[in-house]
């Protein structure tokens, strides 16, 4: 007989008073009101009544872009440690990018990653499959096998690399129509960015670092939206980083092209000037760009041109970052700071309401990925997978306290708002008072 938990004194994403109950792994009652009358719950006695102290309850977050490094690079992260970091950040579902070793380009590897996620029992881990064998960009991987495996892969990406060959990209876009899948493109024209280290601009010229021009991202997106239109398929654009990319996606959407896009929290806040420190904690792909790019990305997320926030959590061991810029790996961790950084960039700046921000972290990514358990608002009958946020509490980012195995966060020392207090995953606590339960 499942225990019944009743939650009182909470607030929903719109700020309305909220009470709800959980039995087993489901929400059995969900009661909100915006008036003064307190909601009442069912008469059946609860085993536990939990007062949430006025904190906000939202669906737990869904990340469509996470690097879990397992198999192959377990010194940086594992599915377990990545899941713990995810839970700490308020996530209930993460999507494991396939640039592992071996690459997740077969049913075998995606099933392995899927199993590791199930074993960790902290959040849903959805493996993303590679588009091409070994992500080499030469021939298609066994996409259908991965789609029909236990991992039920729907998103395919060569992230880390661009699917640069236009014919292969066309084929991939056509092929995933079999099961309504989506190709998630890492837009980076390889020839224009060979050896690139940071955004190509006055700053890179002064610093003597090889530039990664915005056009290398924009040209691929322009090509891909036209391809998606031509073959009537779905395209998702990973980590949009330039103003020009936003403009192209906006144009594509007005043409009715089926394209969605994501932006990372770090691209909503940080600019290329940080490279003047030559500290590789700021080295990332796509690179940090100009203040104008940041401004246009924020506007793009606010007006829906960019659909979702995705972390591109990219853990790296210390030796890959504690060196000269050229020698350092690209990437920043992001699961644990995603909510607070996005909140700072979008809500504190007045560009988005809290509710819309949460949407871009929860239901919208779930809809793109086809993660049905996460794709609807919390209500009676939903899985009891939610995140409790203390909107008022401020906290400091301390890289030494990362739950990720890696400490390469660019936000060390920052004081931020919006604290993730608790997370429940399918009826079990996985985070309580900021501590992961297992």
């Amino acid at each position, binding site marked *: 007989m499942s225990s019944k938990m009743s939650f009182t004194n909470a607030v929903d994403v719109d700020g309305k008073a909220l009470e709800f109950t959980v039995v087993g792994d489901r929400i059995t009652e969900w009661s909100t009101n915006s008036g003064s009358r307190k909601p009442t719950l069912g008469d059946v006695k609860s085993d536990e009544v939990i007062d949430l102290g006025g904190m906000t309850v939202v669906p737990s977050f869904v990340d469509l872009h996470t690097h879990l490094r397992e198999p192959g690079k377990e010194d940086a992260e594992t599915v377990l440690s990545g899941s713990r970091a995810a839970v700490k950040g308020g996530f209930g579902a993460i999507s494991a990018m396939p640039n592992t070793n071996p690459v997740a380009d077969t049913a075998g590897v995606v099933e392995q990653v899927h199993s590791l996620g199930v074993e960790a029992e902290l959040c849903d881990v959805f493996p993303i499959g590679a588009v091409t064998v070994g992500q080499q960009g030469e021939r298609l991987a066994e996409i259908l096998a991965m789609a029909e495996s236990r991992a039920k892969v729907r998103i395919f990406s060569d992230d880390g690399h661009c699917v640069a060959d236009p014919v292969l990209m066309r084929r991939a876009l056509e092929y995933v129509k079999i099961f309504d899948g989506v190709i998630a493109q890492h837009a980076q024209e390889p020839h224009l960015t060979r050896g690139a280290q940071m955004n190509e601009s*006055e700053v890179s010229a002064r610093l003597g670092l090889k530039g990664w021009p915005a056009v290398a991202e924009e040209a691929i997106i322009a090509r891909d939206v036209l391809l998606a239109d031509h073959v009537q398929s779905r395209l998702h654009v990973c980590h949009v980083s330039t103003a020009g990319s936003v403009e192209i996606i906006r144009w594509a959407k007005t043409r009715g092209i089926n394209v969605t896009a994501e932006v990372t929290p770090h691209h909503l806040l940080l600019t290329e000037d940080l490279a003047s420190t030559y500290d590789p904690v700021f080295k990332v792909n796509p690179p940090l760009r100009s203040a104008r790019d940041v401004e246009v990305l924020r506007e793009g997320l606010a007006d829906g041109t960019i659909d979702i926030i995705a972390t591109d959590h990219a853990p790296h061991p210390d030796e890959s970052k504690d060196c000269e810029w050229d*020698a350092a790996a690209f990437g920043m961790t992001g699961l644990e700071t995603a909510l607070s950084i996005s909140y700072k960039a979008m809500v504190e700046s007045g560009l988005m309401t809290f509710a819309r921000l949460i949407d871009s972290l929860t239901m919208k990514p779930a809809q793109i990925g086809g993660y049905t358990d996460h794709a609807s608002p919390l209500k009676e009958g939903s899985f009891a997978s939610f995140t409790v946020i203390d909107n008022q509490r401020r906290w400091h980012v301390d890289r030494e306290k990362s739950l990720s195995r890696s400490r390469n966060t660019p936000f060390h020392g920052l004081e931020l708002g919006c604290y993730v207090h608790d997370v429940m995953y399918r009826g079990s606590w996985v985070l309580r008072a900021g501590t992961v339960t297992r």
Partner: protein
Amino acid sequence: MKFPKHLLSVEDLSRENAITILDTASELARVSDGSIKKLPTLRGRAIVNLFYEDSTRTRISFETAAKRLSADVINFSAKGSSVSKGESLKDTALTLQAMGADAVIIRHPSSGAPQRLAEAGWIKGPVINAGDGTHQHPTQALLDAFTIRNRFGEVGKGLDGVKIAIIGDILHSRVARSNVFLASILGAEVTLISPPTLLPVGIENWPAKIRYRIDDHINDFDVVMPLRIQRERMHEGFFPTEREFSRHFGVNQDRLAKMKSSGVILHPGPMNRGVEIDALSADSDRSLIVNQVTNGVFVRMAVLYLLLAGVNQGLGES
């Protein structure tokens, strides 16, 4: 006036700092004319030449400078780097620090490596940049400025009004970056002459004029400084052939003849004779290339003196 602790970039120097370095170099040159070439100033100090790139000339220049100030010199020719998975820069630095290095002179293929060394806390003493990637080569710019000043200026002053042309691969040149910024704070007028493929994005905002051709204005310049062009750049599409580059951007006899009679030629070395500069021009009496090398020692002595001895007046004090 305060000197920076490290010399990582000419952007760290004020106009006064730069003139002090040049004046100190002048004084050191004068003292060196006498019979005693060594000064006891840095006796007992251990200076490390940490060179990750082959460079006999610069290394020997720094070594000579350090020895003339009676410092002990340790040459560390690092083969491999973090990139080729040799010992990491960090570990090398920590080792040198543990062995008691008082200062580190570093040349490295990665832009910013000296800054990492200076700011990551691996080294306690001053760090001097002997050339990092395509970023800066401060002592080269200083010795170039010194050489130019000896011909066109005087002690105590800058390079005000001197017209300098830097020709060639600006995009990949740390020498160009250092020279442009140093020359501008010293009051010189810099013109960069290069095909557009070899000019970085944003160059319109540098304190220099931009031209795509030499010949129209070659008689304006007091100083013409061609830069070494690497053959690899041809394969990356920056210019079609060496012949075309040489014909349109090379310093040769014909161009030398069009220069004003007081005009001089400098080159940071090593030269590709026949490409950016022909042999006759390099060896002509208008060429100050050999002077640059001699001056390099005095300028480097001045830098070591000013960063390590902690005084900027009165030489010969230890």
